[in-house]
């Protein structure tokens, strides 16, 4: 047995808790999960049935753990793990499953196939066979946490420039983007890039929020690797920052996996050091609208708008009605996709897939069911509250000629706030109607 295989098996053993063993044992191979998977819907073949994928790990588990399988491996399909099998498992877990859990909710037994795919991802990461780019991105994020000084000066310069843009578009000379503000109520954690900083900054300033911007980004590639050690190190940067500043809550940018991990996993990883609430920016936007802290013009967006439920936000995160509340307040013509909410079809971009260029063709092919859904709505604007989903919808938009615009919820809210000037890059969307402008500042 090679060292790679030993490491992979050791990692499987280490993960073998009650939920994982249950997932490995419970499947009756009834095949009802087939159509739940967007890969199967796009290309119906046995290999695309979630149960078939899971079976590849089960065969390894049975060989190691099952009495009957040890005596008669052929009877239960048990196999001794070897390098080609590990390579196959790795490819399945990283390129044919976005961890969306649609198969789980459609399974009569509730088998958690993504949990098994995560187990494989962890085995691949530990044995050094996981996709290199995900490891690089996770390690780069950890590096930023170790010593932010190497980029902090440049980062602050960028923020100063953004602050000028903020003042320009809002017409508010006092608008700010505070960084490392001690005692702020909210620590807002963006993604890398201005597009997740400037629009929320507009909203926070309009709502007169006591907030501060994180110097780190919310995305966590350790989560995609199912490497809890790396994922914790990435998350620790933000947990430490929140503790250092003494904030009351962390607000996560529109990002599916970041919200799901900070809301549902990170409190468990950092039990005892986690005294703040975690909310999505979507929830905060909803509160501001509900409480009248920001004024939005419900007629500002006349074109048909549809919403794509990110699997991490909706099915795995519980944010189902919150985005709809916001959108119904800013979009005149809101149209649901079918199916939606907990039954929403994955766009194909989750699980770190958008960062894996080697699987781009497969990813876009698996996006076909989502493309069909979008087409059926006839909407011109597709809103997604997750960066990976937006990137994927952008790609399928081009590939399947959908002719739609992909945008974030915050961008639409800012548009509905009718600023004196449009946000950079959003000029074409704005209809300036003189006196209608800037009501949000009133």
């Amino acid at each position, binding site marked *: 047995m090679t060292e790679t295989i030993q490491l992979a098996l050791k990692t499987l053993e280490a993960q073998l808790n009650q939920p994982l063993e249950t*997932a490995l044992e419970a499947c009756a191979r009834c095949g009802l999960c087939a159509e739940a998977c967007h890969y199967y819907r796009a290309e119906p073949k046995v290999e695309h049935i979630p149960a078939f994928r899971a079976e590849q790990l089960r065969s390894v588990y049975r060989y190691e753990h099952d009495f009957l399988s040890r005596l008669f491996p052929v*009877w*239960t399909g048990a196999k001794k793990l070897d390098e080609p099998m590990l390579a196959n498992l790795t490819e399945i877990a990283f390129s044919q499953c976005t961890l969306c859990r649609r198969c789980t909710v459609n399974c009569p*037994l*509730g088998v958690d196939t993504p949990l098994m795919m995560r187990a494989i991802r962890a085995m691949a990461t530990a044995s050094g066979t996981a996709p290199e780019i995900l490891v690089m991105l996770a390690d780069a994020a950890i590096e930023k946490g170790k010593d932010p000084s190497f980029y902090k000066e440049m980062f602050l310069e960028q923020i100063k420039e953004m602050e000028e843009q903020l003042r320009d578009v809002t017409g508010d000379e006092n608008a700010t983007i505070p960084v490392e503000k001690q005692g702020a109520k909210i620590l807002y954690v963006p993604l890398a890039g201005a597009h997740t900083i400037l629009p929320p900054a507009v909203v926070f300033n309009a709502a007169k929020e006591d907030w501060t911007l994180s110097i780190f980004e919310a995305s966590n590639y350790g989560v995609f690797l199912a490497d809890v050690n790396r994922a914790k190190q990435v998350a620790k940067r933000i947990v430490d920052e929140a503790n250092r500043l003494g904030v009351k809550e962390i607000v996560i940018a529109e990002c599916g996996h970041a919200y799901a991990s900070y809301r549902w996993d990170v409190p468990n990883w950092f039990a005892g050091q986690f005294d703040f609430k*975690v909310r999505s920016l979507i929830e905060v936007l909803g509160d501001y609208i509900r409480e009248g802290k920001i004024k939005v013009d419900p007629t500002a967006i006349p074109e048909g708008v549809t919403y794509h439920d990110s699997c991490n936000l909706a099915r795995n995160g519980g944010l189902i009605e919150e985005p709809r509340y916001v959108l119904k307040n800013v979009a005149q013509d809101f149209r649901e996709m079918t199916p939606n909410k907990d039954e929403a079809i994955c766009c194909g971009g989750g699980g770190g897939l958008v960062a894996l260029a080697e699987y781009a063709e497969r990813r876009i092919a698996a996006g076909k069911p989502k493309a069909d859904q979008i087409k059926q709505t006839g909407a011109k604007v597709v809103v997604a509250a997750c960066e990976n989903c937006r990137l994927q919808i952008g790609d399928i938009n081009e590939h399947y000629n959908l002719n739609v615009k992909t945008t974030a919820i915050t961008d639409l809210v800012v548009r509905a706030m009718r600023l004196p000037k449009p946000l950079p890059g959003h000029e074409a969307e704005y209809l300036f109607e003189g006196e209608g402008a800037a009501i949000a500042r009133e």
Partner: protein
Amino acid sequence: MLTFQLLALAGLLAGLYGIYIRYIETKRRALPADNSPLKGNPSHGIAYAFTKGMMPWAKESTRLHMIAYLRGIGFHIGIFTSIGALLISPFWRNLPPLLSSTLIWALTIGALLGAAGGLMRIIEHNLRGLSLPDDYFAVWLVTVWMAVSAVAVWNEAWMPAYYVLSAITLAYIPLGKIRHCLYFFFSRTFFGKFFGRRAVFPHPESMK
């Protein structure tokens, strides 16, 4: 007959012991605590998972494959009827005729539904692609057991064969795929806890 009855009892006890061992082994594994702040209610999620969540209209998959799902439900009701029938088998001859014929029909229907499932595994491309020897053996074993149960309720001459088959079937439960009967409870419980905590199932707004 007592020998055959004792054989069946031994099979039942072996099956129960095997399932108990599996239960203990799984319970011995770590159960990660979830201390993330609640949005919904895990208990409500578990209740949902075992009730409304099992309804044929609750999931897209079962709406799409309603007949296959109902066949499976019927088959499993047949299996539990079979187990119940075994426990009262010494008193079969004392059953009122109506109850006796109802039992025969229930077991026959269960066996027919099992046979349909067994045939589907052979005929249907996806199911064939997913199936292992264990799957074919398990479905036909249980189906034949139910069929023989029905015949034995009707005709006493089949009792020895019935008890032998009962022993084999029950003893096989923990060894092969039939042990999913135990993991069903684990799985739906974890499902309910996960989605209940997140207020996905039951979803408060849509009242699903």
